[in-house]
């Protein structure tokens, strides 16, 4: 028993910490695009940070519970409502059989995460519950959710009232708004940065790029000042790291995300640092980004700070 999908919204899929280890075979790590928001939702629900929950994009789902549990929401604000009343974000709460949890369009941010205490009962495919939509594997039948789908809880807290009390009502301060007009993404210069002209690099680092509607879980397709190259930007295919920003011949960059193709033949001007991938994933079509060069030291310290903050949160919540 778990919940019925009354409506999936624009795109709802099961996502956890991903499926690392198969780059050499052509499958990217996948998983939640904003891992930090997923982790916060999970910690609030008493789960491990990478447990699989629901990732909802731009417009959220409507779910009807057939079994009680504790859930938590983080990430984009889709104005969640429980039986018509405003439901909290960044705070765990109990749901009862018959309750309807409905999400609307995102007011700010792009992706909301819903975590279920005890996780979802789904098979591990190649070691993961995360859905890879292109490969058609993982999650619920390898695809995004559809109306009428029924997902089961793996180990819901409902039958154990004491456990519910322990987890229910946990809260943390919400993340800073995702709605800033321009998000600055820190990057490390990419493996083919020398393929671009001085003017091209200036355009890239000095300009602002809008996220287009062609963006998906594979990549954020950007539009802004064209990035000029010294010659053709086609290269002999090379591995594409997570966050790699490639520039096809048109000069418009594409930032590659968790479900990207693992190899590609376009020059990579830069790579978005790990700590800023969540910020990028929360940009929605029309939102703008800018790129700022940082050193490896700065990037890795930023990651460590994020990890330490999550660890502190986990300690505080006693999970």
């Amino acid at each position: 028993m778990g919940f019925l999908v009354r409506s999936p919204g624009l795109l709802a899929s099961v996502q956890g910490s991903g499926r690392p280890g198969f780059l050499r075979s052509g499958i990217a790590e996948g998983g939640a695009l904003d891992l930090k928001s997923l982790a916060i939702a999970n910690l609030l629900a008493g789960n491990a940070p990478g447990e699989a929950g629901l990732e909802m994009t731009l417009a959220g789902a409507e779910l009807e519970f057939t079994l009680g549990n504790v859930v938590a929401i983080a990430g984009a604000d889709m104005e969640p409502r429980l039986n018509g009343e405003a439901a909290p974000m960044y705070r765990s709460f109990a749901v009862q059989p018959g309750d309807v949890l409905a999400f609307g369009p995102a007011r700010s941010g792009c992706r909301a995460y819903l975590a279920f205490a005890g996780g979802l009962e789904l098979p591990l495919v190649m070691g993961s519950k995360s859905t890879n939509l292109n490969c058609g594997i993982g999650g619920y039948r390898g695809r995004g959710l559809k109306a009428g789908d029924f997902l089961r809880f793996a180990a819901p807290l409902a039958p154990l009232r004491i456990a519910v009390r322990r987890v229910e009502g946990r809260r943390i301060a919400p993340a800073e708004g995702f709605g800033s007009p321009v998000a600055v993404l820190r990057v490390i210069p990419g493996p083919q940065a020398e393929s671009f002209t001085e003017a091209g690099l200036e355009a890239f680092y000095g300009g602002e790029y809008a996220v287009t509607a062609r963006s998906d879980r594979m990549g954020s397709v950007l539009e802004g000042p064209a990035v000029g190259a010294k010659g053709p930007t086609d290269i002999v295919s090379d591995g594409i790291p997570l966050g790699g920003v490639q520039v096809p011949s048109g000069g418009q960059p594409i930032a590659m995300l968790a479900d990207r193709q693992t190899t590609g033949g376009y020059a990579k001007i830069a790579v978005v640092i790990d700590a800023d991938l969540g910020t990028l994933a929360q940009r929605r079509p029309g939102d703008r980004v800018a790129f700022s060069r940082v050193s490896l030291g700065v990037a890795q310290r930023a990651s460590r700070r994020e990890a330490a903050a999550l660890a502190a949160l986990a300690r505080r919540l006693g999970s």
Partner: protein
Amino acid sequence: MPRPSVAPAGDRAIVVSFGEEISEELNDAVLALDGRLQSERIEGVLETQPTYRSLLVRYDPDRASFRSLARRLRRLADGGAPAGAGPARVVEIPVAYGGPYGEDLPDVVRHAGLSEEEVVARHCSRDYRIYMLGFLPGFAYLGGMDEALATPRLPTPRKAIPAGSVGIGGAQTGIYPQRSPGGWRLIGRTPLRPYDPDRDPPFLYGAGDRIRFRPVSEAEFLDLEARIEAGEA
């Protein structure tokens, strides 16, 4: 061979690039470094991804610094040719050519100006190097097809090609590991599943292996397919 470049690919990966062309020599160097890394089990190295001409090394910066890892990679890459590397593993792929399995075989026959038997014989006559996997899960970039078989892609790609289809696109040949759209000319199909997420291991081959196509009759194809379906093969 020039010295490889070792550079960051973001803050959690390093790319070791040996050059910018498709050649067996460069790919050998990539695979040799990959092999050495696999056997050395360096602290902090999470995963490696060999490509035509580079090796992407994903690492955990809390367990290995870029500097120390880059130094180590440079040293390992300078080891030169894959000394002591055994002969490549050959994976035999049974293929039913032509007919309903390879609808576009007549196009290749016409384009090559050879008989159908000759086209099939040439396609099976050599072992193909797997340079890398990418594009789709388990899709192998193969090298070394007989140039006489090169045939332009279809003017309009098909919306769905069955898994196991063997095709020719320009000077390349390959196997579609899963049902997908595609524009290659289909010349045959294998009953094997190059990629099966529910099998362990999910992939039949990896970079550095060789593919050898073996022509089979329709009867043998159906028999193999039934045995694979039943989990016996």
